[in-house]
């Protein structure tokens, strides 16, 4: 392999109602081993994937939300969240899980992985990718 490519995973769907959020996350985890430049975008209903307080006990399905918090350990540290998508859904930043990573280039300081952007910034970030994966 030559240079790292910029991989973007676009998440536009709510969790649990369909499997797409979970199976997208499984690709992210595997992809992390390939040393590419990885970003995740949460837009539209995708912002619900990282809502805090998810508890699937009564549903009888697996709660995979803790995995988002572990992404930093896999070197996946850029999770872009669209502000307009939150607002339309009656959500604020406080309704999301805190997701952080330890920056190995900065004495393992804890830093936030969630990057809150507006729609125009999200569109620009998307336009700078090599590969855009949607599920």
């Amino acid at each position, binding site marked *: 392999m030559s240079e790292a490519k910029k991989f973007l995973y676009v998440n536009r769907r709510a969790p649990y109602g369909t499997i797409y959020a979970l199976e997208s996350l499984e690709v992210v985890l595997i992809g992390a081993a390939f040393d590419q430049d990885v970003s995740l975008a949460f837009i539209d209903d995708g912002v619900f994937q990282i809502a805090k307080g998810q508890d699937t006990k*009564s549903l009888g399905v697996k709660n995979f939300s803790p995995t988002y918090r572990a992404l930093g350990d896999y070197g996946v540290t850029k999770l872009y969240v669209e502000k307009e998508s939150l607002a339309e859904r009656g959500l604020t930043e406080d309704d999301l899980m805190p997701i952080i990573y330890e920056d190995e280039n900065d004495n393992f300081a804890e830093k936030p992985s969630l990057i809150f952007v507006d729609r125009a910034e999200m569109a620009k970030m998307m336009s700078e990718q090599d590969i855009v994966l949607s599920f």
Partner: protein
Amino acid sequence: MPTLHMVNKSPFERNALQSCLAHALDGDGVLLFEDGVYGAIKGSSVSGDVEGKGGVKIYVLGADLGARGIESGRLIEGITVVDYPGFVDLVTSHDRSQSWL
């Protein structure tokens, strides 16, 4: 002859809830479940449609709220939370069920 309308789609992604509410009659019930529970959150861009539908009783499935991290304090006023046995009661106490797929 009330109908139980069942909506399992996010109102932000699809038109199912909107179409359901446009066809529900006074005395009917609407059950929000699966991704449909997002229609029960207050202060969203679609909550006005739900609040404005007087005459129709709105129910929401608790298990689906919990999975999605939605606490009861965030629900639109007047919505009733049910569990799966309550879901069954809703089906048997209405004359028919209609799924908005």
